[in-house]
């Protein structure tokens, strides 16, 4: 399916979802050109001008180190994109591969899916906490942990979808024409899974933001010096009564971004192949 037409169909007549999509594009742009549009260095400390109210030149005010909250928020968009995209890649690659291979090679699948069942007995946040305990606090590890947590659900979902596709006539046709296993899996089955994978990716992106923010808040996520929206909330929470705006802006940014991603995911889900509608997770 043509990607552009797919998007156009998905968003036709959905104003809120389109707004969400535009917002996410803005986040990505902000993340890329952060050094150009941020008025201050996000790490520059100014002890004199701490806890300044929103105004000029500090649009969102300053935090308890006197750092410019607006600039930190813009650099925070970078972390949002890195966490989101990174977790999606880890989850879809690991989960997707396990799910597809398990459905295709039945005997292997019996073994692998039991393993996934066991991992799914660990609630998501608890599993993230356990893995974090074994690793150091770093951007890479946070991405890895969140990705692994969602790889389990992704494997489950893709297992079901691949099983459905495996029974289709075009797969039989490919087998008859002498196609090998890898050709059937990646050239015949995988292309049919792309749009449901895109939907799944959008929900993982949204959930990953909330998980990352929760980990940051617990002091177990990104290293404290990294400017992320979750870290900003975590660091400034004791100033909530003195400087409530310090928590308002990063919090609103998280809410709007997660909401946008959920809206986009919903719009995409409604437009995908009806065969898979019941399989996709999401809010």
């Amino acid at each position, binding site marked *: 399916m043509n990607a552009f037409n797919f998007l156009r169909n998905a968003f036709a007549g959905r104003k*809120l979802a389109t707004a969400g999509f535009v917002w996410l594009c803005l986040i990505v742009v902000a993340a890329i050109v952060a050094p150009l549009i941020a008025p201050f260095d996000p790490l520059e400390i100014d002890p004199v001008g701490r806890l300044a109210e929103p105004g000029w030149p500090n649009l969102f005010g300053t935090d308890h180190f006197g750092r410019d909250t607006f600039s930190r928020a813009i650099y925070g968009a970078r972390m949002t994109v890195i966490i989101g995209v990174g977790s999606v890649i880890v989850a879809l690659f690991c989960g997707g591969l396990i799910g597809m291979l398990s459905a295709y090679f039945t005997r292997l699948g019996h073994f692998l899916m*039991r*393993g996934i*069942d*066991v*991992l799914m*007995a*660990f*609630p998501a*946040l*608890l599993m993230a*906490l*356990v893995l*974090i*305990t*074994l690793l150091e606090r770093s951007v890479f590890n946070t991405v890895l942990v969140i990705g692994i947590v969602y790889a389990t659900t992704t494997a489950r979902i893709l297992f079901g979808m691949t099983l459905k596709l495996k029974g289709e006539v075009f797969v039989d046709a490919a087998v008859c024409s002498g196609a090998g296993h890898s050709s059937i899996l990646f050239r015949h089955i995988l292309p049919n899974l792309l749009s449901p994978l895109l939907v799944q990716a959008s929900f993982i992106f*949204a959930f990953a933001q*909330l998980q990352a*923010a*929760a980990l940051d*808040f*617990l*002091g*177990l996520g990104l290293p404290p010096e990294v400017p992320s929206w*979750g870290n900003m*909330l975590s660091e400034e*929470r004791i100033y*909530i*009564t003195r400087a*409530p705006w310090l*928590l308002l802006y990063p*919090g609103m940014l*998280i*809410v709007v971004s*997660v*909401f946008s991603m*959920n*809206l986009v995911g*919903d719009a995409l889900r409604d437009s995908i192949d009806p065969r898979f509608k019941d399989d996709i997770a999401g*809010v």
Partner: protein
Amino acid sequence: MYLNNSILSPSLFRMAGAKCLLSFIEVDMLAYTVKRLFTLIPTLLSASILVFLFVHLIPGDPAAILLGDTATPEEVAQLSAEMGFDRPLATQYFLWLGNVLQGDLGISIFFREPVLSVIASGAETSILLASMTMVWIILFGLPIGVLSATKHGTWVDQVTSSGAMLAASVPTFWLGLYLIMIFSVTLGWFPSSGFPSLSDDGGIANLRYLLLPSLTLAAPNAALIVRLVRASMLDVAREDHVRTARAKGLHPVRVTIKHVFRNALIAVAAAFGFTFAALISEAVVTETVFSLPGIGRLVVQSILRRDYPVIQGVILVIVVLYMVVNLLVDLAYARLDPRVSLK
């Protein structure tokens, strides 16, 4: 007439038939329960292996890790001998499993108390918090979901569904902090942190400490229930028996309640079970925000204190709880919905 004889009245016939059917279902149900119990055992054992390996994945001598930094070499050597840390991993696992099955989860490094009693001290808060949260989820989630489904396609539906999605997009700790600021700091209506036991002074009134936390925790979960109720009611509404009910002229409210809602509730009831089990661990963040002495905060504090025996114990307890609840949900599901195949 003979057929009008009370012994052979149609309602009695139906009752006898239903009773026969019931006993068939019960035999099937028993077999199904036993089967599910047997499939639970390998999963539980595999999960226990993962939990056991957790301490071994941390770099360093496991005995030293379990005893903490303050342990003397003699204590480390003694625990090593007790747990057989010099023996093969499989032997160690069975020694550990044997202890666990007797209720011995080790000794907390920080509290210097058995892990089981440390966990038990957080259980009251966690269970009360989860229960209160479930009350809000049912009180808000069900009616709003029904409203959203019955007004399907109207602005009411749009507002409630988008509102639910928005509520599911809010980080719980952020919501909690603002609730504390508004209702505790500014208005002074509710306490902002802590939870004295119900057996302390104040008794049942101490539940007010859990009001804000439970509302915080309920917001995203109630939102999920709203969307689930809406989706499953719309699914059921498309089925033939609902069309028949409408066609025979039944009142729309009666159709909605008796034919649509009751059937949709089967899927929702299953979700309630999962939600309750998930709440115990999801409460990690909420308990931290409101400084509640529950199991969730115990996990975070134990991670920060490197109190590995407690982390291991809590994971084990939560995972077992989660699996048992899953099993109960499946059994209840099979019981509620006769269409679920028991084979």
